[in-house]
């Protein structure tokens, strides 16, 4: 009989701004310069979640690494799958993401829903209220929009939200308490 001990403490790098009101459960690693708003939820149920740097996770967003539907949590022999999220992504208010692999510079707009079998590459924009639950790799620079989830390819990738991130990293600590980071608790001062 083998006991597997899951680390229950979130691993938040220095430079990330994670509000105390957000719910982080399970083995979650958050990179520097990432901002997690209050009431965001990052739940690592069936495996760890690794989030890169420069991401923006807004209120009521849900990033969940959940068990597949037909497998009970106690089944033995199930390998925990890691969910990887790249850099400079934006998860807007109220979106739900279960995609196991998300690249860089993607924007998941408000109330969008990504299923478990989708893989986002880079520069993709999933429009507001669009449900993407197909089993496919979305090519680079794809825009999914409209009530019928029409698609088109854009020529430029969305710009990283550096201005927004800097502003939030300055303002959020004034109004919320932050979760402790791994190396020290103070956020670095930006020039």
């Amino acid at each position, binding site marked *: 009989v083998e006991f597997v001990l899951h680390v229950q403490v979130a691993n938040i790098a220095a430079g990330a701004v994670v509000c105390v009101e957000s719910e982080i459960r399970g083995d979650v690693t958050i990179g520097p310069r990432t901002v997690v708003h209050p009431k965001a939820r990052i739940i690592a149920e069936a495996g760890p979640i690794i989030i890169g740097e420069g991401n923006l996770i807004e209120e009521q967003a849900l990033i969940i690494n959940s068990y597949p539907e037909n497998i009970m949590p106690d089944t033995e022999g199930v390998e925990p799958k890691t969910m990887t999220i790249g850099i400079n992504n934006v998860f807007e208010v109220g979106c739900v993401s279960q995609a196991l692999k998300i690249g860089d510079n993607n924007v998941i707009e408000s109330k969008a829903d990504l299923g478990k079998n989708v893989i986002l590459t880079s520069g993709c*924009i999933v*429009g507001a209220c669009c449900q993407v639950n197909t089993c496919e790799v979305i090519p680079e620079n794809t*825009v999914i*929009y*409209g009530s019928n989830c*029409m*698609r*088109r*390819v*854009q*020529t*430029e990738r*969305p710009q990283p939200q550096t201005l927004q991130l800097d502003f939030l990293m300055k303002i959020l600590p004034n109004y919320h308490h932050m979760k402790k980071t791994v190396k020290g608790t103070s956020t670095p001062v930006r020039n």
Partner: protein
Amino acid sequence: MASLLQPDRVLYLVHGEKKIRSPLSTLYFCRYCSELRSLECVSHEVDSHYCPSCLENMPSAEAKLKKNRCANCFDCPCCMHTLSTRATNIPAPLPDDPSKTTMKKAYYLACGFCRWTSRDVGMADKSVASGGWQEPDNPHTQRINKLIEYYQQLAQREKLERDRKKLARRRPYMPLAFSEKYGLGTRLQRQRPGAPITSLAGLSLKEGEDQKEINIEPAQALDEVEPLPEDCYTRPINLPEVTSLRQRLLQPDFQPAGASQLHPKHKHLLIKRSLRCRKCEHNLSKPEFNPTSIKFKIQLVAECQVLLTLTNPVENITHVTLVGCEEGDPEDINSTAKVMVPTKELVLAGKDAAADYDELAEPQDFQDDPDVVAFRKSNKIGFFIKVVPQREEDGDVTVSFKIRHDFRNLAAPIRPSEEGDAPTEAIWLTHHVELSLGPIIA
């Protein structure tokens, strides 16, 4: 509340060219004919043009010149949303010193919905925020303009011929421009069916001007057509590049098959319309001129004049009689149940806006029969009817009956009377009403 939340429950019958049954909230009431009017028995006229995004009014002549499109606003060719102008800073060399660069603003069009930008089709960024964007020219414009000129001249000539024949019969000394002066304004000219295309006669030649003879070449049929490319069947399709039918047909000039040729078009203007009763030619609804205003100059909505389900909208005391439809009534086609309405006359108090605030006012005593009247509150009354469903089917139970009520026309022209004010006379109106009561349970 049926008028707001379930408008199709109570239908009124409108006697027009067609018998239309529709809820009161969609009907108008012509107070000169004292009849209900629906949207199908009034004539719709264009009142003013405006752009839906910049809310700018445009005079009709200018709208015709610009083909009913706004000068400032664009539509996304991909998703038809309104395009917004965005600015970026690009380094540009100073005119005095080419080695130094300064930040200059460059503007491009972008769609917030599908993220289309003007850079996708190769349109260069402009240095001015508005007015720099041009639609591409149609290569066939010259030919089309020439054809239009030719046909305008033809229509003009035909019209003169016709007028000359008509006037020659009656008054030979009338000037030829007689029909021109009175064209399109009077009822007779407007309602004449089969009239030639009068819009082409907008630009009319003045008398005495030399008429240029415009000749056109007929279109030539070609024998040889461009052959299809060789790899037409084997080349894999680049799906994002293929335009949808809707995107293609919105640009009838070019109808591009590739998404990289989709250029933005100017936004289409919307109109404000005014409604006119066909029998008495009075205006039933006339909107405000200002595009930002939602009010009306004239608005004769039926709800303000005709009785609702026994809420009295007018300020006088109104007497209502309900009469059930007789057997074989030609208007009674939809009812699936027999209804027994109260036979006595019901009296409704007038609408008094201040009654809610005046607590000391004595309630008017109408001596209602408790079998007939369930409750009474200011200008509303609830009364009982008995319904006997005729069929056992699962459909909705519908009853119909006629409401007969008195109506005082407050807008009647003031007749000069010698004895001071005479009270306005009441006329009795009858409406055919259908009520949908819902399905039978068990």
